[in-house]
């Protein structure tokens, strides 16, 4: 999946790809302070012939777990499930619905999006992308949108959660790249100097078909240097797992 991180103080967007394996669960937000964790499980595109190397990955399932409430919301491209220990309630994408349990609110917009809100402080929105069922390679997937206004604790981490506290970023040495349409530059962030490329990614919230372009500085090698550590350290065993930090 593609990640776009909006950095309001620096007034820029930074993007990177993480191509892990289908089935892997990536920790996106892990906040022991508020007891909220957001994880995403990858699904692969359909494989064509023997080109196994070219399998793309997307988020097929995204979970939001509120530890204090003991409630987990699992959003997949098929269903939306609410689990609280022994109870399990399941909803389809076929109806617009608002479901409230304790501090957790789930708002489903028919065949379009789900927003999970925990205690009015943390909000996660998932956008459903349906593809043609007989498409040779594409599969249904979820887009994930997490606002910067979320009120995490200072303990928040995760591939996205770590940017709740915005790092200082400096971009300089802007120059022409190998691709004449894409400029290159050097980015200084978290004590690292990274070669970055100007590119764009899509935000599908307003136009789910075509999306709108978000221009961003692209970090190569799965966000290496921009994210803390290696992306594989964000792989967690279960959908309700918090990130274990050394």
């Amino acid at each position, binding site marked *: 999946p593609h990640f776009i991180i909006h950095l309001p103080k620096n007034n820029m967007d930074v993007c990177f790809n993480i191509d892990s394996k289908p089935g892997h669960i990536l920790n996106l937000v892990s906040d022991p302070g508020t007891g909220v964790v957001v994880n995403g499980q990858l699904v692969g595109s359909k494989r064509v012939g023997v080109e196994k190397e070219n399998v793309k990955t997307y988020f097929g399932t995204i979970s939001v777990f509120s530890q204090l409430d003991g409630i987990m919301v699992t959003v997949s491209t098929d*269903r939306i499930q*609410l689990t*609280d220990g*022994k*109870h*399990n*309630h*399941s*909803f*389809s994408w*076929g*109806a*617009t*619905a*608002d*479901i*409230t*349990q*304790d501090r957790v609110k789930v708002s489903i917009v*028919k065949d379009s999006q789900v927003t999970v809100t925990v205690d009015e402080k943390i909000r996660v929105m998932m956008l459903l992308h349906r593809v043609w069922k007989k498409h040779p390679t594409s599969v249904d997937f979820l887009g994930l949108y997490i606002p910067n206004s979320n009120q995490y604790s200072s303990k928040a981490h995760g591939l996205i959660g770590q940017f709740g506290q915005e790092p200082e970023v400096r971009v300089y040495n802007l120059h022409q790249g190998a691709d004449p349409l894409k400029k290159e530059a050097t980015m200084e962030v978290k004590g690292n100097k990274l070669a970055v490329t100007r590119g764009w990614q899509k935000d599908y919230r307003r136009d789910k078909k075509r999306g709108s372009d978000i221009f961003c500085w692209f970090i190569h090698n799965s966000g290496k240097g921009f994210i803390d550590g290696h992306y594989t350290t964000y792989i967690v065993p279960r959908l309700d797992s918090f990130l274990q930090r050394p």
Partner: protein
Amino acid sequence: GVLTNEEQEDFEAVQGDDITVESYRVESRITSRFCHTTFKSFVVNSGPNAQSIGFHVQIPKRAFITNFTMNVNGVTFVGSVKEKTVARNLYAQARARGKAAGIVRANSQDMETFKAEVHVPSGNRIEFELHYQEMMYRKLGLYEHTLHLQPGRLVPRFQLDVYIYEPNGIASVEVPNTLGEHFTGLAQVTSNKHKAHVVFKPSLKQQRKCDNCTTSALSGIFTVKYDVIRESAAGELHVSDGHFVHFFAPTNLSPLPKNIVFVIDVSGSMWGVKMKQTVEAMQAILDDLTMDDYFSIIDFNHNVRCWSDELVQGSTIQVAEAKKYIQDIKPNGGTNINEALLRAGQILHKAANQGMLNSRSVSMIILVSDGDPTVGEIKLSAIQKNVKKIMREDFSLFSLGIGFDVDYDFLERIATENRGVAQRIYANKDASEQLRRFYSQVSSPLLRKITVLFPEGSVSDVTQNSFDKYFSGSELVVAGKVLPSDGTSLNSFITASSDRLDLSLQTEADYMRLDAELARQQHAFTGFARQMWAYITVNQLLSERSQAPTASRKRKITQRILNLAVEHQFVTPLTALLVESEEANEKLLADSPKDPRKGCCGGGSGTVIPERTPMVESPPPWVQLTTTPTPSPALGPLPERLTIVDND
């Protein structure tokens, strides 16, 4: 239609010297859970003399007859639904002129019998056609459509068709063989996403009891079970013909915890099979309780005993003790329903006051009784008042009446008045299984306080739209009229609460799409929404009428029912079907049957004509004949043999 050569041969083969049934056709068209059924038969008097030919059909009690027509040698009799008194007067006038014959409907268990008989000269041909409509109620996850087949004799052209059209798709269709081994594999089902067609067309050979038999093996109930695809938790909203129907049956929700007080009649009349079967059922029901549930048991005859004075948790130990207690009950004595129900209410109150009841749990009393009160308060209206007084808004009463010695209307009244339902349990059938099935229907409450709302100014005449509970496997249905609008779609909003959830759901339906789709369907029942709305409204009004507190309120409700029944052509307890010949000078009247408890009818026997001329030979159940030769005209008036089933 004209018989094919093969059918003609069959016809000649079965043609006897009395009456020959040339064809027998049954057709049901189910569209969005509303069903229109037609029974049609051609009969020929093959005998040398005029004979009485009868047409008997068993119809479900919940169905409304909508029409009956008859053609006797070219003279057509057409039915029309009229207010009962109007129909009776017209009928009485015809009868006085000797131009009337009777049609009778009789109660028997969950079916009632429709009978029409007419005297027919030798060689004449009669065509009978009966129509009725009913709503399919979802129980335990399925809609069950039953057709009682009793052609009585071999029929060269026998065919049954059930056409199902469900706009949101059919999840499953099954035709369990309820007609017996003889007919195994004969029913054919074809289906696609939205449509299903069931055909049952046994040949003459297949109908014979044995290879050389001249009698038919075809007698029993034909059953079709199906369910629909439920893609949305908000249910299905169908708009057609200026009306809407909203079906709400969400799945995949966890059940709510229950607090149940079982109140079991152990009076002397329960002795024997009834008690044995009740004990059997209770053993299974108690096993179904979980640690989340709380319960107690009250058994009563003239005295009232509590197994436990307060609710206890449905743990394995408590359940085992309760089962032992039930096992040891020996029925005897009278029936003190009032005291037993009050005690049950007190147990729930006590639990509520002690804060034992989870605010989202469901509290219910399940009453099992087989007879009227004989001890303590025996006035039904007083018991009804007492029960209502003790039941809090969040308590429900479910009543099960075993056999026909119980005033089922009363049980139904106290149940519906207290947010529950009633069910009759037939003691001569597998009562234990019936009790268990009923319990299964109410043992998994999924939602509470369900309300279905529509934007202001978009609909009118909405049927009941707020419900106390929704049980797993059932379905809530709301119907109404769609008001003219500039918009293109109707929205509905549902709110409900579950175990710990508060739900708010929304769905919409296009005003035109379904009608356009129905117009393309050859076998759909167009106009289903209009009839379904009327069907639900009439049933609700009948229930309201039975609970009307004042005479003037009752009169107003009566008038509304009459208007609707006449407009939508339903034979209800307040209307009758007048069947007139084209010249309107010969008439038949079909009134609704009485409940066996209310007087005229022999409960369960299926016969309501005590002074009927004894039948000769061994007539098949629906084609009956007398040997009394009757001269023309075709419809021989025999006023002295007429019995009109009166009601209300």
